[in-house]
């Protein structure tokens, strides 16, 4: 299977382990990721809060490249996904976008990577690659907001209770826990301006994951990861309640199951070290 691939900037920076695990897992699954040629910023972060037109045209530029490639576009970063979907909807609605000369034809689907795994790669292929059963692990899947909401932009089938990560991990044997906080806000956008609010939101997610009986949280968004992974120490200090819940990209967990060799390298980059948990679970 060959698809277009838009990694986005995070996957080269703060979320390198995400980028690497996406690529390795896809290789294992026989998915050929063809990186968009000369891709540029998606318009997230600074653009979309300051200049609406720029935010759309940056994303639209990438969509044009994808259109010429003519394959479905897989996007691992939730923020990129959101921006590209917004642009897609705007273009489809006939909006004139600066810098996008041709009439945008579309003709391909933008897929977030977790949906892509479940809906396009499929259970059979994924589970056939499982070398290690993840049954000793009890994750909850945290989707955050950008892949789910608003459904008219994201086209999420089940915006209140997304399933793709749950399904993927379940097919690898993981004891995925049910919970109601899959799409609650993690406070990512307030982490610099109002950390007090963000911390409260993160704490709620941590508390509820624990309540659900989870020992780790699976994510598929670099912002969620950063926010959930790096604030726990601070929150523990502020509240006096110890938080130490490993946060893992869904692709890292897949990598563990597929016994991809570079897993250890990815795991070392986390703030909350997931290795003790994973070794207790007999997975590394």
């Amino acid at each position: 299977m060959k698809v277009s691939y838009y990694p986005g900037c995070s996957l080269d920076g703060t979320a390198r382990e995400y980028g690497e695990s996406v690529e390795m897992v896809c290789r294992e699954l026989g998915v050929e990721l063809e990186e968009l040629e000369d891709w540029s910023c998606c318009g997230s972060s600074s653009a979309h809060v300051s200049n609406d037109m720029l935010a759309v045209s940056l994303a639209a530029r990438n969509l044009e490249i994808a259109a010429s490639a003519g394959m479905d576009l897989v996007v691992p970063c939730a923020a990129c996904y959101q921006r590209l979907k917004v642009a897609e909807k705007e273009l489809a609605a006939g909006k004139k976008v600066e810098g996008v000369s041709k009439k945008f034809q579309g003709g391909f689907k933008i897929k977030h990577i977790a949906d892509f795994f479940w809906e396009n790669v499929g259970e059979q292929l994924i589970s056939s690659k499982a070398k290690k059963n993840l049954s000793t692990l009890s994750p909850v899947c945290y989707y955050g907001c950008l892949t789910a909401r608003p459904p008219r932009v994201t086209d999420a089938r089940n915006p209140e209770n997304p399933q793709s990560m749950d399904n993927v991990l379940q097919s690898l044997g993981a004891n995925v826990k049910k919970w109601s906080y899959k799409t609650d806000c993690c406070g990512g956008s307030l982490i610099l301006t109002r950390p007090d609010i963000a911390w409260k939101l993160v704490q709620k997610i941590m508390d509820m994951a624990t309540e659900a009986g989870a020992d780790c949280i699976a994510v598929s968004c670099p912002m969620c990861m950063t926010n959930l992974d790096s604030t726990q120490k601070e929150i523990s200090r502020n509240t006096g309640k110890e938080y130490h819940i490993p946060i893992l990209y869904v692709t890292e967990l897949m990598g563990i199951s597929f016994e991809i060799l570079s897993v250890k390298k990815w795991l070392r980059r986390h703030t909350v070290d997931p290795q003790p948990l994973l070794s207790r679970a007999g997975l590394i």
Partner: protein
Amino acid sequence: MVVGGGICGMQSALDLANSGFKVYLVEETTSIGGRMAQLDKTFPTNDCSMCMISPKLIEVEKHLNIEIISNAQLMALEGEEGNFKARVLKRPRFIDLAKCSACGDCVDVCPVQLPSEFEQGLAKRKAIYKRYPQAIPNALAISKRGTSPCTIACPAHISVQGYVALIAQGKYREALNLIREENPFPAVCGRVCVHPCETSCMRGKVDEPIAICHLKRFAADEVMQAGELSLPERAPNNNRKVAIVGSGPAGLTAAHYLALWGYQPTVFEALSQAGGMMRVGIPAYRLPRDILDAEIKLIEDMGVEIKTSHRVNSLDKLLSSDYEAIFIATGAHKGVKIGAKGEDNPAVIDGVDFLRKVNLGEKVKIGKNIAVIGGGNAAIDCARSALRTGTEKVTIIYRRTRDEMPAAPEEVEAALHEGINIIFLAAPSEIREKKGGRLELECIKMELGEPDASGRRRPVPVPGSEFVMEFDNIISSIGQATDIPTGFKIQLGKGDVIQVNSKTLATSKQGVFAGGDVITGPKYVIEAIAAGKEAAISIDRYLKGEDLEAGRERIFTEAEGNIEGVEKRPRHQIPMTSIAERKGNFSEVALNFTEEQARAEAERCLSCGICSECYQCVAVCQAKAIDHNMRTEELEVEVGSVILAPGFEPFDARLKGEFGYGRMPNVVTSMEFERILSASGPFQGQVLRPSDGRHAVKIAWIQCVGSRDETCGRDYCSSVCCMYATKEAIIAREHSSDIQPTIFYNDMRAFGKGFERYFESAKNHFGVRYARGIVSAVKELQQSNNLLLEYGTEDGQKVQEEFDMVVLSVGLVPSPSTKDLAERLSIDLDRFGFCKTDELKPNITSRPGIYVAGTFEAPMDIPESVMNASSAAALASEGIAAARGTMVTEKEYPPEMDINQQEPRVGVFVCRCGSNIARVVDVPTLTEYASTLPNVVHAEENLYTCSTDTQKRIIDAINEKGINRVVVASCSPRTHEPLFRETIREAGLNKFLFEMANIRDQCSWVHATHPQEATDKAKDLVRMAVARAVTLEPLHMSPAPLTRSGLVIGGGLAGMTAALGLASQGFEAVLVEREKELGGNLRNIYYTLEGSDPRALLASLLEQIEKEPRVKVYKGAAIKDFAGYVGNYKTVIATSEGKTEEIQHGVVILATGATEYKPAEYRYGESKGVLTQHEFEEMLISGKLDAKKLDSVAMIQCVGSREEDHMYCSRICCSQAIKNALKIKDINPDAEIYILYRDIRTYAMKELKYREARDRGVTFIRYDVNRKPAVDEEDGKLKVAVFDTVLNRDILLAPDLLILSSAVRPQPDATEFASKLKLPLTQDGFYMEAHMKLRPLDFVNEGMFLCGLAHAPKFISESITQAKGAVSRAVTILSKPHLMVGGIISVVDPENCVGCLTCVRSCPFGVPKINAEGVAYIEAAACQGCGICASLCPRKAIKVQHYADRQITAKSSVICSV
């Protein structure tokens, strides 16, 4: 024709049938009753819903002029009003309604369980079921979705789902018998079948298919080992001989069934042992010989003769002896050559020969290292058998890949597991013998090319890829062929198979049939078995001289099982012997399931077809009422008009994902909560949580789920949810006082009659907490399954609260099937799917002759549906009034016997009710006992006393034995008393000479575990019934004449509509209006919220009244005197000319209206700028006021409503305010309009206008009743101060106008007038109907009806509906040929009466009077027979007939005197 059997459809049907029309009631489900039957209690009276609807159900069922067509759909309607042809599709019920007595014995044996629709999925029901215990028609029904894919895939079409279901229930014997109906080799097939059933199993789409094959083996082994197998009963021997050539599966199967059907089959077998390929093809480690022997023995036990070592060479010889027919089933036992050079070497063994020798126990010489060529099951069998006969190394060579291998995957797996090496993509090209006798095998590598005819990719040799291996022996097993003796002289086809007719298996030779491998080439056991049975059928037909082909093809409708949301549960694996144990022997490799595994595995079945067709119900039904072959029928019915009352569906709460319904077990819908509350529901009325069955304490209701919500396309208000949630909260509290209910709501819409008071009592008396605002999402705590709700408080705080349970108040949605219905009938719907009607022409659809009633018109509650139903009935009969009485059925009875001089002679009929009574109560003993009781001259027991044949027995017994009192001991008088009364009347006995003993509902059912005590109690009950029966006396109803005209009091909209309605039904009407003009309040309404023209309506009504000769109008007249009773009223009218006139009439319709409250508050009457809504409307229209000059207008809602002393909502004022606000906006879009409200009650579609008002800038400010707005005037300018409870601050307005939405008040003289007519009023002074829910248009006083504002505040359209409804109700009386008077009523003994007035005061119907002689007089026509007067009369001067003291004490006196 009435479509829809809910409360609305039933009411329409009853009204029509009771006024002289024949009614077809078409119901989509298997029973009538609709949604109301599912409800627990009803608001605002908390009456039990089932108790109210159940008598109606029976009334409909027993009505001679209502024909219920259940399980049916109206497909098409041709023609026009008065002359429609309706096409009705009646789906099969699979139960003969005439025979089924609803005993339920079949339910006990049915193995298939599915979620009960009636219980909203909270409980299970069987595939054979009754929707609910009281369901009408009182009969079972079977749910089928078609045939399950497994049964279709099975070549023998065994009822696979059936036996799997039976195994799940632990009914192994039944399962085995079911299999054996199509297959006499279940133990064999349970081991060796290639199970196409599993390949097509729907479960495979979820996880893995059901292990059907292993389950079959389990059932066979379990039953046969226990020695519990009983052979089916053979038909009497017909001495006709059939020869069967070949004792393989096909031959023996044919022999089995032929023997079963009475033939004498002889099987000829060439080999020394019977079994064919089952014996010589399949090795014993797969099919142990004792198993095969046992099943062959069973066939011999059926009377089949097997002659082994007997080769048949000539068919003609057989035919010329005693054999009348022959079945050739000689199989395919000849090996096929590989086609490689050198294969004739003696060390190259033919696989078929090899297996035959091994399996027959002959010595086979084989080396240590061998190759097997081939990829089928036989090749694997050769390989694995070789391993067991001393070979050490086996290599299989196959020319394609593993995916293309024809062998069963589990066989390949087992071979690999046992250490057999398989070389794929290789084919032998040459075999050479080396020195020392070893063989050198040269192979060539293959690659896969294009697909061939079999659909598999063709192997293509790779040039130059030859390789060589060495072996001791090579077994070739690449195929088998037939070997048909030339002496058969029979036509062969391609591949040397016998040519047959594929349907009948007939060969070219008369009387000779062939099947199995001999016609197909090598195939599987199950296919041979299927062929064997088909051959047996052909031979049977042939010998009976019947057509061979007719109806042979089996056509299946494949059932598509539902796999959505099915949880994954892995398939159970059977245990296997270890590799070590297998070496060197042929003991069975695959072991059996344990019982626990088997049942758990069988429970994985998805029941694709729903009914599994296991036929257990057929076996157990003693009434022979079950017919699995019923087909869909199409009926054509001629009807004059059609009423559509298809009802609603609860909104699918899954569409509002944020509330977690469907994934959080303790989030339930309100409909589910109704069932939870119901005493007959899944939890017997305890408020338990679905997740853990724990008692719920904190319960939250979330309102407006699927209502007032544009995001899910449901922006209308569902009208009923505020009240039902209130009711549910109250009832929950009544069930358990520790329950803490909280209702989260938007606006409390308690707009109906009595609702506000109900809401107040919920708050103040029952402790229901109301929290304004809708929660945004429901979160679940995973440990406790408790639910977290986050909401804002009135003071703006964000709060999180934990609840045990959440109830979603789901809205009313037209069911998807109504959309199709509307399309088929070409009637228009609105954008939500409700039926489109004109505001001022309610009930009238876009197609003349089709009327709509109930929630299909708009969301409404039960009383409104009932009124609507009556209204639709009036409309539906108006156009065909001339046909009244032409199609009604009246029963003719023989003259009644005079029993006056006779001694009581009692006949007792004791019902077994199938086994319902008999399995607990000792019925023979009870019957014997009954025969010994005094006055009993006859006692008998019946299988079903209610069955048609028993009715005849009862009549015969009455005639033969001179019985003059009948006692039936059976189920319940509730359902069956009318039937038995009818029966004895048919025998010429007075119907009151009947008594019933309830020995089922109140005995065998409730004492199921105590048979002895139950029998004793049944004796007591029968003894009591007999004792009372002896005291019974005939009672007679006598016809009384009636005046066929009506008096309508009040000439407003309702009164005029009612008078015209009576006239169009063909009756005279007198319309009395005290004002000088007709029109009432309608005169003051100039426009409506929805935009209709009430002025035109008024003009049209006045004109029609003028022109209608059957309506006589008295204007400016008053009712002076009122007397009489139903059918015969006398009313004196004081006319405008000052004269009096006496009018005789049969019915009264009261439509005296109401008035607008003149406020005493908010400076009304003091400041010029303060008006009521009516006044404003009038000024605007008359031009006294120019809206263009208004800068700002304020309106205050609830003026005079919803307060102490007037604790009711005036219903119309919210809409009035919005109507006037929008009117101002129309004229002057810039005008600022403020509506100061408590709750906006724009129910149903009026909600859309509320939204429009907001969109157009009307400002709504909510005030609290405890902090009402303050109005002041300064310098001629109005000042309105209001505390906005949303903003939490004071707001000061300075409007040009203040418009007060003042209350609707009863007429000031209502009390006085009501007492003149002896009619009751509610606390609020409106007239009180007979029953809030089901008799909203009737007064308790028979013959009197009400409509319009006199009943309660309402809109124009509602008044019209009510008026028409009242007409419909009145016509049920006016259309009777005469009134039947008497029967169970109170009679006064004047000798004993002292005129103390106790009866006069106590009668709720106001019937007793003191007559001229000074004693009480009870008018028979008016008495309701309730017995209150008789029980209270201090002189015992009154008795209720049929319930006289001695008739009651007769029972009690025998209880103790055993």
